[in-house]
């Protein structure tokens, strides 16, 4: 059918719709356009914009065979209380068929405080495992072969220290750094914008990040040195387009910083990875994944003149949207997670964490985690969604939505460029404010009923208080404190002092790469708090300013 003919038929269809609506009004609060046709994507050039899997601009996926080769990595984020307990959970996950580890650290660890610090009181071991020194890291990975497993660590401000500890543990296992596979999140910009576990101001933070890029490109070549994260931006309330726009703007800032530090773009860009949220609106999410790959490919090729294909590929880890889980009727969350999983898979993710049904209430129980992992396995093995590459390509709606999200992302990126880049936009509070406004709108839509959340503002029932929630043993903090004290009594404190003094000198010299100094310090069993304390002394701390 020619476009003219389609236009003609469309007009007839619209007329019939008007008649139908007169008799049966449509539901309220729907997206404006009810139907998509070839006219919506008539300007989309297949070769330039869509193309083939493994081919620029990677809209259809970064690998030529995608899941026909192997499935995405089923990577369950876990970690709580002590290193011993977390180690047990990791080994349970590996036995259950998980193919990668993902470590959650407690808040003191994420902010560079020891468990013995007064500020850590009440927080030790709560949202993740407490790691105070190399001694804890040795226990965390006990009997786990670091030469085989790939490990993702959700650690940002002190990422350099945790990575150094991982390298040191591997060394003790007889595994050299060049064999290590995994990811550190290491994305400080989204901490300022959305997640909140920053330590240092932006400038020294960017230095630490580029130090890691440089060190790993030479010594830990298979390591993903950053996971540029939209996940938390979305959790904080952003829209799908804002999620990828703000994250890619952050990515641009990292690439610029690294180039400014003298690195060649193709030497580090292939190790950059991303982290998306899989939210509730399945088709919009699929479009978001596709759009994000296209935007990043264009950024890397056109703006940064990358030449290696790998430098242009947006590889992504995904987690289902925690903020979309409801405390009401928590078993409904199993269904939400299954749909979010379908979105991530049709979107072509490289790895996936699925949330557990009880996470709006507490940390997940083992049974809940098992259901979440099984959800991925059912989608992989039973649903057929992974059998054909990019199965929604060519859908008028999904292609049009991909274009729309891409266009919105470019608008934001342009605006942020004009402000002087992501660091400046964050310092101005622009990105935070945009996210807050979207979060507020979402909440107001839920409260007005414009947006329905099953079990929350519709289809509510009287419920009993949920049972069998996981509780973190309240004595964890005391136990961990005692462990740190005992470790400190045993270590060579002169060696610690010397290593920390050396680190301080290195911090003061902007041209020095800090990684070797941090690695030397962790090997003396200097604690995370001691190492970050030295850096706090030299770099200072970030202070946030909030505009409601």
């Amino acid at each position: 059918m020619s476009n003219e003919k389609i236009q003609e038929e469309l007009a007839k269809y619209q007329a019939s719709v008007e008649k139908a609506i007169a008799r049966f009004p449509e539901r309220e609060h729907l997206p404006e356009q009810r139907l998509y046709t070839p006219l919506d994507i008539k300007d989309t050039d297949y070769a330039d914009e869509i193309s083939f899997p493994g081919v620029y601009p990677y809209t259809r996926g970064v690998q030529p065979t995608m899941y026909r080769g192997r499935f995405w990595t089923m990577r369950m984020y876990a970690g709580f209380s002590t290193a011993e307990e977390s180690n047990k959970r990791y080994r349970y996950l590996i036995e259950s068929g998980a193919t990668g580890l993902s470590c959650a650290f407690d808040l003191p660890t994420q902010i560079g405080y020891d468990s013995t610090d007064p500020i850590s009181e009440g927080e030790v071991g709560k949202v993740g495992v407490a790691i105070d020194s190399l001694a804890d890291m040795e226990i965390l990975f006990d009997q786990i072969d670091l030469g085989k497993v790939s490990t993702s660590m959700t650690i940002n401000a002190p990422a350099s220290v945790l990575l150094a500890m991982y390298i040191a543990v591997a060394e003790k296992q007889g595994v050299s750094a060049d064999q290590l596979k995994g990811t550190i999140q290491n994305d400080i910009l989204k901490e300022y914008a959305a997640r909140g576990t920053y330590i240092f101001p932006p400038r020294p933070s960017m230095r630490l990040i580029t130090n890691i890029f440089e060190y790993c490109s030479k010594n830990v070549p298979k390591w993903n040195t950053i996971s540029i994260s939209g996940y938390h931006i979305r959790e904080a309330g952003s829209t799908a387009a804002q999620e990828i726009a703000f994250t890619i703007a952050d990515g641009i800032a990292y690439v610029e910083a690294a180039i400014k530090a003298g690195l060649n773009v193709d030497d580090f860009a292939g190790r950059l990875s991303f982290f998306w949220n899989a939210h509730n609106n399945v088709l919009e999410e699929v479009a978001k994944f596709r759009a994000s790959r296209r935007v990043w490919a264009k950024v890397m090729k056109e703006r940064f003149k990358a030449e290696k294909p790998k430098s242009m590929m947006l590889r992504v880890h995904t987690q289902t949207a925690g903020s979309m889980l409801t405390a009401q009727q928590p078993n409904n969350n199993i269904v939400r997670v299954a749909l979010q999983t379908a979105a991530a898979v049709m979107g072509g993710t490289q790895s996936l964490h699925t949330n557990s049904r009880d996470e709006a209430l507490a940390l997940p129980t083992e049974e809940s985690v098992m259901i979440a992992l099984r959800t991925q396995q059912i989608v992989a093995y039973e649903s057929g969604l992974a059998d054909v590459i990019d199965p929604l390509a060519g859908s008028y709606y999904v292609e049009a939505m991909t274009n729309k999200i891409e266009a919105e992302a470019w608008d934001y990126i342009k605006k942020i460029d004009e402000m002087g880049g992501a660091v400046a936009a964050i310092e101005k509070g622009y990105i935070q404010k945009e996210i807050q406004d979207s979060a507020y709108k979402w909440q107001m839509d839920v409260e007005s009923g414009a947006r329905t959340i099953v079990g929350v503002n519709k289809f509510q029932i009287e419920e009993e208080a949920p049972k069998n929630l996981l509780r973190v043993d309240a004595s964890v903090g005391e136990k961990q404190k005692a462990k740190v004290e005992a470790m400190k009594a045993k270590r060579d404190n002169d060696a610690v002092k010397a290593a920390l003094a050396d680190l301080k000198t290195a911090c003061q010299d902007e041209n020095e790469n800090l990684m070797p100094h941090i690695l030397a310090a962790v090997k003396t069993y200097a604690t995370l708090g001691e190492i970050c304390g030295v850096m706090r002394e030299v770099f200072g701390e970030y202070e946030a300013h909030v505009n409601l």
Partner: protein
Amino acid sequence: MEKKIRVLVAKPGLDGHDRGAKVVARALRDAGFEVIYTGLRQTPEQIAEAALQEDVNVVAMSILSGAHPHLFPKVVDLVRNKNGMKDVLIIGGGVIPEGDIPALKEAGIAEVFTPGTPTSDVVDFIKANVKA
């Protein structure tokens, strides 16, 4: 003219999840309250001090990390006993297991708002219970 109700929205502890705190802060402001938001990572001492300095009628705290059994009662103690602010209404919210709520109320948290609560419930609760 009636004096505006003053609310301190606070994030005790180390967790950075402030979507809820910010949404609630804004909803309270839109409901006509005077709202002061502390920002992240406040110690109980800092929150009590801010409550005193800002002379608030309500302290509303949000925690998602599980540190509430430790931090909420500490703030209540400081506000009530150190500041001597006996009439301040102290409320909390976040990912807080139902089983923890009785102990928090016992400690002086007037109400605990868990996920899925409409912000209008918080507004109504404050209006009904504040002593201003």
